[in-house]
């Protein structure tokens, strides 16, 4: 038995959507986290809750990448695939790197299962897996044997197969096991027999690795040298929810989430619904329109109104966001983007709502747009979105996406006490500048252009707002042409003037090519840039977190480069916005498969471009 130290490994578990792949992946990830590896994960599951068993479109998978250095993506190509049935093998085997390890349960490769998966010949025997290292492990049969003492029925006993795999992989990679049994007993505390079955299966998996001679080598991935601090693993949706909660905490405003369930945003509601001990209320509304309406109504009352959705829901909310623009009330709208148009690809990722976010309302209706660049950055971006919404009295759009929402990574816990407070600065008395003693709700702060904000319950400041055009300062209804012209321009100027940090450029080698991305493409772009640099190529990188307004130095930065490559998971929406600013040297690289970019493919694209080959 040899033990080999490696710097990173990518493992993918795949099985039927009822086989417990997400739980398996989650536990394996937590072990890596506890061990101190850096990591990134990517779950992939079908839109159907229980798609037909044994078929390729019913396959659910979970990929985890863990390493001894900081990593940026869940990995392009798995090193190891654990396939629980023929369909899982078929759906995933082509992604493996050459020489990769495949672990299958040969008992699953029956004629019937092969047919369901669409295999004409048995891939275990027809030579099609020749380029891989194949291990046949009777995971089902051994699990049945291991849990036999519990007297569990066959069907229930087989459910623990995923924990057998966890045990085997834990052994292969020398993962710590102490936490696992404890966690399983805690998770199934109400079902002690199930807990015991899972523990027995887990031990059987570990022992199988140790006692058989099937695996000649085990691997060790050392802890990563991450910045010192306390860490947890966090998904994008969880981080976003915690960011909203924190925004309420530091602003001392009640957070009111009005939302309607939609994939892949629902987990934000699920997370926040658990924290009602904070000054937070959740409203599961009757539809997307009511959801944003309730949020805006709460904001009118002085709360921080928030609504969470995905692309189809954002379309429905457009009119109410317009009302938020007109009434100049804070509102945070989270769009966890998915493949579109229409129902599209509900469980897959895409970045194709950028233009909807920027322009998807009638009239001149500008709103700030922000996009987080990693799962943990969803926290900071949510706090920032709330800060802008409250400071400038405006709806703010936050564009997350499916890859960020469900992906996870280690997160160094933020120090809440160090966050700058958010101050709603409610009006408390009359403010008219004409000695009338009146209250003018549309009198503006000279610096931010934010309007005065008096909330119901404030005596003497009773006033009415609404969707009709407002007179400057007094906020009374006004159909005056000059007033409308002034108000349209003022609303635009307010958004244009939002304080946005300058765009940082990472360019150690004075490169001629800049890669500019936004949102969840940060990880793969960064990984590709690193690879190019280690191959001796000079390439600069910058990533936009603010998509409206853009950083003030954007044009300057872009003009310094011969060409700006803009990779996006859409047909070039950021590129369109940049070209509209008069930038001509934009090379748009786009992909709309519903899957994130791979570092390797971006590396190839950039390399080709720099070699002068048309991409």
């Amino acid at each position, binding site marked *: 038995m040899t033990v080999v130290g490696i710097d990173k490994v990518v493992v993918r578990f795949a099985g039927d959507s009822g086989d417990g792949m997400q739980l398996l992946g989650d536990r394996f990830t937590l072990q890596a986290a506890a061990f101190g590896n850096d990591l990134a994960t990517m779950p992939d599951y079908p839109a159907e809750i229980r798609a037909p068993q044994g078929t390729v479109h019913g396959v659910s998978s979970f990929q985890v990448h863990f390493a001894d250095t900081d990593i940026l993506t869940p990995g392009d190509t798995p090193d190891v695939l654990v396939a629980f049935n023929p369909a899982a093998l078929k759906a995933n085997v082509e992604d493996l790197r050459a020489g990769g390890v495949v672990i299958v349960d040969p008992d699953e490769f029956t004629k019937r299962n092969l047919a369901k998966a669409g295999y004409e010949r048995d891939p275990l025997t027809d030579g099609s897996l020749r380029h891989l290292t194949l291990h046949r492990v009777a995971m089902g049969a051994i699990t049945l044997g291991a849990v036999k003492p519990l007297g569990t029925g066959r069907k229930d006993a087989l459910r623990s197969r995923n924990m057998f795999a966890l045990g085997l992989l834990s052994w292969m990679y020398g993962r710590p096991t102490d936490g696992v049994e404890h966690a399983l007993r805690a998770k199934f505390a109400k079902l002690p027999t199930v807990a015991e079955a899972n523990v027995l299966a887990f031990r059987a998996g570990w022992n199988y690795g140790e006692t058989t001679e099937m695996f000649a080598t085990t691997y060790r991935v050392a802890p990563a040298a991450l910045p010192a601090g306390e860490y947890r693993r966090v998904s994008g949706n969880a981080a976003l929810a915690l960011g909203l909660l924190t925004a309420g905490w530091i602003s001392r405003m009640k957070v009111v989430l009005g939302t309607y369930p939609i994939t892949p945003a629902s987990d934000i509601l699920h997370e926040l619904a658990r924290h009602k001990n904070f000054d937070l209320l959740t409203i599961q509304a009757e539809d997307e329109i009511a959801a944003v309406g309730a949020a805006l*109504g709460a904001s009118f009352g002085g709360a921080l109104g928030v609504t969470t959705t995905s692309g189809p829901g954002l379309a429905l909310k457009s009119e109410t966001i317009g009302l938020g623009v007109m009434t100049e009330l804070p509102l945070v709208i989270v769009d966890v983007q998915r493949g579109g148009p229409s129902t599209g690809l509900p469980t897959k990722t895409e970045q194709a709502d950028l233009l909807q976010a920027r322009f998807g309302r009638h009239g001149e209706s500008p709103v700030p747009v922000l996009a987080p660049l990693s799962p943990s950055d969803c926290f900071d971006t949510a706090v920032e979105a709330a800060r802008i919404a409250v400071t400038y009295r405006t709806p703010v759009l936050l564009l997350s996406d499916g890859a960020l929402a469900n992906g996870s990574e280690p997160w160094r816990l933020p120090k809440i006490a160090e966050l700058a407070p958010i101050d709603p600065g409610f009006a408390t008395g009359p403010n008219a500048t004409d000695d009338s003693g009146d209250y003018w709700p549309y009198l503006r702060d000279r610096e931010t252009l934010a309007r005065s904000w008096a909330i119901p319950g404030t005596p003497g400041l009773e006033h009415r707002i609404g969707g009709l055009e407002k007179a400057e300062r007094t906020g009374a209804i006004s159909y005056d042409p000059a007033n409308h012209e002034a108000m349209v321009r003022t609303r635009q100027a307010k958004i244009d003037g939002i304080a946005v940090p300058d765009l940082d450029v990472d360019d150690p080698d004075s490169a001629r090519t800049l890669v500019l991305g936004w949102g969840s493409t940060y990880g793969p772009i960064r990984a590709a840039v690193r690879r190019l640099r280690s191959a001796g190529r000079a390439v600069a990188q910058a990533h936009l977190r603010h998509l409206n307004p853009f950083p003030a130095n954007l044009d300057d930065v872009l003009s310094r480069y011969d060409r700006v490559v803009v990779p996006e998971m859409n047909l070039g929406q950021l590129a369109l916005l940049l070209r509209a600013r008069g930038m001509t040297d934009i090379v748009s690289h786009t992909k709309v498969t519903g899957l994130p970019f791979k570092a390797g493919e971006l590396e190839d694209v950039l390399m080709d471009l720099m070699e002068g080959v048309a991409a």
Partner: protein
Amino acid sequence: MTTVDTETAGRRSGLALVPSDPEPQKAADYRSDQEVRWCPGCGDYIILNTVQAMLPELGLRRENIVFISGIGCSSRFPYYLDTYGMHSIHGRAPAIATGLAVARPDLSVWVITGDGDALSIGGNHLIHALRRNVNLKILLFNNRVYGLTKGQYSPTSDRGMVTKSSPVGSPDAPFNPVSLALGAEASFVARSMDSDREGLAEVLRAAAEHRGSALVEIYQNCPVFNAGAFDALKDPDQSLRRVIRLRAGEEIDLGPVGEDGRGTQVVARDPRGRLAVLPREEADSKSILVHDPADEDPSTAFALSRLSTQDLSCAVTGVFRSVSRPAYDDEVRDQAVLAREQHPPSIEDVIAGGDTWTVSERSER
């Protein structure tokens, strides 16, 4: 579901948490500085005056009253009241008001809407606000026509009504708003008329006191696009024969008053259990209906709502139903109170999430 004090919440007044004003108020206190711009003769004027006269009676702090409207002629209403207000977007007022009512228990929240706003574009929000029993008072001005868009038929227009959008007659069947509200599990449903100031004020006061959603349908005359639609109910003689005024604990009757001071016609159950209007002398006295708006079972209230006919040969007014059940916004807040009692909030603990590890300054490679 666990709640802190559902029963008390169910019984307390709709205004229980709204601060009161020790100073007496006048109707004039509720007039805003905006010029009222409805057409001359519009029923909205009477409703506005009635509301402005009724609000001081509630004795609430003016700044704790909010009117939220949708779009339509009636939805201009908040501009003319010197309270907090929002003129929102078409059909969405109940949703916006729900968020406000949930966030702010110290406010008396009113929704002003019309037949198009509430029953057409906003139908979904209306039924769900009623189902949830949010502490909102919804005043539905029903003029049976679209006024602001200049005269198209509405979801309460007569079938066959000729308008610009239905030159050979509307093919749509109308809603009965009271029946709809009862079907949507509303805990308080009433109907009144713009011309009946006294009856309207009475119903509005009862609505304000009710904890939970209150829907008040108000028949309202549009003098321009559907003039005289409710005239049959306004003529004193006609009204006597057509209008049933519901009064809790009293026999339900109508018609000219007889020597005994009672209406000559009564509402009674026929042998098949259906409600019918028949001459008093033909009715078995035991079968005459005594109105009980607090009846938990909504079926009698529903049957009463069906006595009202689209042609107004019979119109039932007053409070159909007023029952006590938990209000949504109370429930939502009670959950939060309970959660805080069980787990005082700690932002650091929530951020850490329970499963953390520490990376020290010099991590071993």
